[in-house]
């Protein structure tokens, strides 16, 4: 298990007064996100119990995978009987946005040690990246200590795991939550994540292609229709982005123009 080792490494990073201060600052800056993330941890706990992951399985999901929407998708697909390879593929695709975060942090925090990147990378989430990127934007010339990111990330990690635990207990002891449209909350959460991302025409194209194909191919075995819909949507979005970029480029000057 990576997390206890990681926590030890991060804690030792925070020992010097400067690092301790940076750790506390990261923790403080990320605190509002702990609260907004808590309902989702709670929902995940309920879902995990509902799909049959059990108390320990559900908690292990949050403590070892620690990946918000990817956890929901993996648990949801597991409950629908999807094959492991399909679940791993969807998890990888859903987490691919972390590559962008990793790329940004690797560039702007080049002073972080390699061992630190490997450890804090374990805790890289939308929230910890958002807080850290905001800090980097605000002070672009100050080298940000690794401890700042550690504070923001570890706080999120504990808040997420605590809320998952509460959700699991609720799921195990409460009434049949499916009667209350509990799954609607999960899909509404997905909608809350992707709707604000629909900011340009190519993204609408990607979403539209994925939507139509996912509904059309829904009966393909092993959720292969889902994978096809995702890949086709990405290709369609990328292609339309390229098309738009090409159209917005100024026309190349001809030889005659150059002579003039």
């Amino acid at each position, binding site marked *: 298990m990576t997390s206890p080792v990681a926590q030890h490494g991060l804690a030792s990073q925070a020992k010097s007064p400067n690092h301790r201060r940076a750790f506390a600052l990261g923790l403080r800056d990320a605190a509002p996100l702990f609260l907004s993330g808590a309902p989702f941890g709670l929902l995940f706990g309920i879902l995990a119990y509902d799909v049959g992951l059990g108390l320990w399985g559900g908690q292990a999901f949050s403590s070892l995978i620690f990946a918000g929407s990817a956890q929901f998708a993996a648990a949801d697909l597991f409950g629908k009987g999807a094959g492991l390879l399909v679940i791993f593929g969807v998890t990888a695709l859903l987490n691919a946005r972390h590559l962008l975060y990793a790329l940004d942090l690797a560039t702007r925090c080049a002073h972080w040690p390699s061992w630190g990147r490997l450890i804090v990378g374990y805790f890289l989430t939308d929230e910890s990246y958002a807080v850290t990127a905001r800090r980097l934007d605000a002070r672009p010339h100050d080298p940000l200590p690794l401890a700042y990111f550690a504070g923001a990330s570890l706080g999120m990690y504990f808040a997420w795991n605590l809320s998952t635990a509460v959700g699991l207990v609720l799921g195990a002891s409460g009434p049949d939550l499916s009667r209350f449209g509990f799954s609607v909350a999960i899909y*509404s959460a997905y909608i809350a994540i992707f709707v604000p991302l629909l900011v340009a025409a190519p*993204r609408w194209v990607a979403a539209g292609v994925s939507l139509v194909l996912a509904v059309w191919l829904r009966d393909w075995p092993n959720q292969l229709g889902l994978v096809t819909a995702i890949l086709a949507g*990405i290709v369609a979005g990328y292609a339309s982005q390229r098309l738009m970029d090409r159209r917005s480029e100024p026309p190349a000057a001809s030889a005659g123009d150059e002579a003039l």
Partner: protein
Amino acid sequence: MTAQTLALIIGCSFVTYAMRGPAMLIFSRLQVPLFVRQALPFVPICVLVAITAPALLAPERSLDLNPLNNAWMLAGLGAAVVAAWRKDLVSPVLAGLAVFWLHHAIVTMS
């Protein structure tokens, strides 16, 4: 915990971590191809839409676009409207649930 659950957790942990720590290390030494960087923003949208759409538009496996029957679709629409208006995560969830319960109450009464 069954062997399948254990395999699921270990596999998902590995896949997730590979996109984080090692990526942070590799990207400090390696140039990422432009087309990969341009394609990445589409990925979360396509994954979430592809998971959500069949669940809301075909909740009983067959396509159902009738708002009188399909409370799931209406709940999704409610959540989408609120998500476009407010950028937080909680309000669309509450809106989706409210529409779903309201539909359920109206259908039960009539």
